[in-house]
């Protein structure tokens, strides 16, 4: 397991596109100290190599095919109704190139 330190946590937060205050990182670091001990409760369970990772409680039967019927999608105005920055019917963001 990767070593847990302030740099690792800051890197993780920045990759998630947010930042925290120094005090908040310290709280997180001390939370990890407890969490690591709690994780050990999983570490001591034997025989897990015999199990497949469980991603859902049980299989869902979704065997239908949708009828190929036209539907009305959102209008442009509706799609943009909740966006805070728009221009000429599109979402406006800072330039990516040039």
């Amino acid at each position, binding site marked *: 397991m990767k070593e847990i330190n302030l740099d690792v946590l800051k890197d*993780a*937060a920045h990759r998630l596109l*947010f*930042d925290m205050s120094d005090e*908040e990182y310290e709280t997180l670091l001390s939370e990890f100290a407890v969490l690591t001990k709690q994780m050990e409760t*999983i570490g*001591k369970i034997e025989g897990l190599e015999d*199990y497949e990772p*469980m991603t859902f409680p049980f299989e869902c039967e979704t065997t239908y095919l949708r009828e190929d019927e036209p539907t009305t999608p959102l209008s442009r105005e509706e799609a943009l109704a909740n*966006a805070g920055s728009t221009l000429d019917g599109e979402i406006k963001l800072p330039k990516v190139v040039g």
Partner: protein
Amino acid sequence: MNYLDLSIRDIHQALVEKKVTPLELTKEALKRAKENKDNCFEMILEEEALAFASTLTEPEADNLLWGIPYLAKDNFSTKGLPTTASSNILVGYKPLYDATVIAKLKEKKAVLIGKTTLDELAMGGTGTTGHLGITYNPYDPKHERMIGGSSCGSAAAMAAGIVPFALGSDTGDSVRKPASYGGVIGVKPTWGRISRYGLFPFAPSLDHVGYFTRYAEDAAVLLEALSGRDVMDSTSSVKDVDAYVAESEKELVSPRIAVLDDIVESIRDNAIRDAFLDSLKKLEEAGAMINHIRFGHDLLESIYATYIVISCAEATSNDANLDGIKFGPYYEGKTYQEVMSQARTKGFSELIKRRFVIGSFALMRENQDVLFLRAQKNRAKIVERTNQILADNDFIFVPAAPTVAPKLGATSDKLSDEYLIADNHLALGNFAGLPSITMPLGYENGLPFGVNFMGRAFEESKLLSICRTFEKITGICGDYYGKEGK
């Protein structure tokens, strides 16, 4: 006596006989909502509710929910109405569609009178982390105790007697634990039984739509109304919906009930333990066969860590779309990354950020095998053990929580059995997707506590039947804080 305090069936009868109207019920519910001081509401929909209730003039005799006021947790999408999930990152967001459960209740002509507070984005179990602050337990008017979460507003509103039912969501115990602290019924059905379309996701492999009622029969009424396949949710089940109300009326013959002794032993509150053991005797007297079983201490102890790893990892990925661009407050920046980063830094509270970092840490390449995949494998082992027990028993029956509602700010030993086992075992129902209902059991110094029944997948009729029997055993039926004559 006020009609709002009756069971849904009795209110319905009064509506059909025109002893009361939907408008009168709605006005009474709104009055109670506005008088409440427990911080239950993101918004009270007075104008909308009164307008809708006014249109309900001809009672529908075959529709038990016609004209019944209700509340919804604010993580259910409501078309054209703000839906915040109690997070600043969603302030101002108005969904373009209704969640399926909201649409179904609209079709039934139930009256939505407000949206309730939650722990931010439904991540939390204390009812203290929403952007409007702490939601309090009505049973402690000094406001020293939590109601629990994440469905804090719905639970508190139910405990305060504001409406006959309220929607919540449950990823670890977010309906069933606050139900225990609030002395009401908390239902989480089988995973896939109720469509999740329009519910903001937290951890989709664990998320369920749930709800609160005050009468056991009402729990059946709601399940019948909300269940069923929904093409908008590919994880919703194609299984037929039972006639839950009629089926749950049938008393079970010698039901086999498994009591998990290792959970009971981890509880230190003698009043709760004694009341639970006493309820076993009464269940036996009512014909049940009680089997004392050990689940396995180490497996139970690992539930919490398994839950945290899986839920945080799923949440980290799910909530990547909360970026302030398509919806939510927009902040200027020199690059699109800066725009997103500003929105997420300002929009999420500290707790949410910490959970996301935990999830991200578990998903890092170096950690995935030892943390995330190992947690998923452990989940499989825990579920296997749960289903083994239910192969020989109709239900698993345990205290829902180790204590009455804790005081705000109280600390607990996060490595103790009481915390790791007694305080977190309800996640078993989410791991396995099994139906699970919290029922009120009693009061300790005026504060309520409850028990939990869990059954086999899609066997809600039996589960509701044992709950209706249990309600008769305890005699706790329709209670709320401050109820006339209580």
